[in-house]
């Protein structure tokens, strides 16, 4: 397989994850003297040290993190659905086993993040409730349908690719449990992106029908993937404060540009095209010019009017309710086993 030795795909990002992990350990070795309250919090931030669960922190920092981590966790959980749609119809046993492992990883990522969010004093049940009742959102990208097998490839390359570009800077987030969870997640995500790229590469070098299926998937997923970076910086509501708290390290537009620059190169190796006639290298900026996604469409999808919003939540709710008897049985069994000890 070509994936492991293709340096263009992800190794640069993986190096950044490794750097973040090294810096996290280095920061742990630098000690700060005793300062109380807000002074201590600000001093930790200034020294690029991690805030830990029992440290004093501003209420806004806590609530911002809970919201962001919960929505991130919800996205991983809902993100299982578009791909699991193809589990039973993967073209080979190998592809099926790989996709199964990937979907299992998404569940794992959701659980790492829920556990990290719980360190801030919120319960798991309340987080589930927020997702099922629609009071907290998940990434709008998962409200698009997976129409063909090539969509599984496009999700891996573009959606997971965009997620990685978004998430690698979070490995340096000031909140320790989030940063540590993100380091773990990013290392695992790189397999996801490569498997997607490999699916598209195989299709793009197959029959003309396979190639056009791959191109069709890229055409449909390109702009929704660009929209994953959120509204433009001029409209972004949370950016500035999150940057000051070192929860967020780069603006939406910076990350979007970085993603476009990566994809513009990677698509040439695939032999496919990005559906943007305006995409071209701008030597003055040292970056690619590109057409912005339709942000009004993004807002519509966030408002609940994407192609699959209702289906995704209905499915999640049904899975939660259908699993209730398993949770109840396990809890009843645990209670029964505990009882004789206390009698």
């Amino acid at each position, binding site marked *: 397989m070509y994936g492991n030795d293709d340096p263009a795909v992800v190794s640069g990002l993986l190096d950044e994850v490794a750097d973040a992990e090294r810096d996290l350990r280095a920061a742990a070795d630098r000690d700060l003297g005793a300062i109380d309250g807000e002074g201590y919090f600000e001093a930790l931030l200034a020294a690029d040290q991690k805030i830990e669960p029992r440290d004093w922190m501003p209420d806004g920092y806590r609530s911002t993190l809970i919201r962001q981590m919960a929505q991130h966790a919800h996205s991983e959980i809902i993100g299982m659905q578009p791909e699991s749609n193809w589990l039973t119809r993967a073209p080979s046993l190998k592809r099926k086993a790989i996709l199964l492992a990937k979907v299992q990883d998404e569940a794992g990522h959701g659980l*790492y993040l829920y556990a990290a969010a719980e360190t801030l004093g919120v319960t*798991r049940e309340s987080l589930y409730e927020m997702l099922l009742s629609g009071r907290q959102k998940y990434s709008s990208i998962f409200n698009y349908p997976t129409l063909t097998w090539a969509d599984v490839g496009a999700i891996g390359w573009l959606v997971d690719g965009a997620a990685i570009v978004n998430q690698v800077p979070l490995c340096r987030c000031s909140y320790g449990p989030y940063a540590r969870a993100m380091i773990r997640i990013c290392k695992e995500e790189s397999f996801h992106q490569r498997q997607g790229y490999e699916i598209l590469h195989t299709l793009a070098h197959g029959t003309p029908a396979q190639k056009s299926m791959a191109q069709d998937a890229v055409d449909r997923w390109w702009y929704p993937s660009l929209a994953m970076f959120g509204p433009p910086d001029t409209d972004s509501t949370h950016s500035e404060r999150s940057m000051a708290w070192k929860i967020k390290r780069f603006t939406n537009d910076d990350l979007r540009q970085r993603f476009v620059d990566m994809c513009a190169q990677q698509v040439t190796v695939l032999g496919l095209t990005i559906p943007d006639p305006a995409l071209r290298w701008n030597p003055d900026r040292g970056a690619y010019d590109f057409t912005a996604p339709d942000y009004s469409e993004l807002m519509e999808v966030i408002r609940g009017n994407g192609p699959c919003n209702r289906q995704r939540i209905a499915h999640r709710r049904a899975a939660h309710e259908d699993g209730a008897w398993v*949770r*109840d*049985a*396990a809890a009843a069994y*645990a209670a029964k086993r505990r009882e004789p000890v206390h009698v």
Partner: protein
Amino acid sequence: MSDDRRLTGPAQVTAHDSPLWEVFVRPRRGLSHTHVGSLHAPDAALALRNARDLYTRRQEGVSIWVVPATAITASSPDEKDAFFDPAADKVYRHPTFYVVPDGVAHL
């Protein structure tokens, strides 16, 4: 009858009964168990199995401990209080405190 939860059935049992467990993994023989995260499970056996699926999908460990989070007693309400101060002024506990005369070997 109502005081016997086995007779009233599982309807009373909610997800709130699934406690939090802290997970520790020994990455390789010769290394200590290290805290890797937490999870919810109704009992220890399921906590272990969930921990295997959640934290060792890529052979990250050769041994797992799961500990009920409520069984952990933490040193202080935050990570920096006076609890550790007594050690701060005892530099003589470190070998570098002592002046070794020239010419002494194996010290």
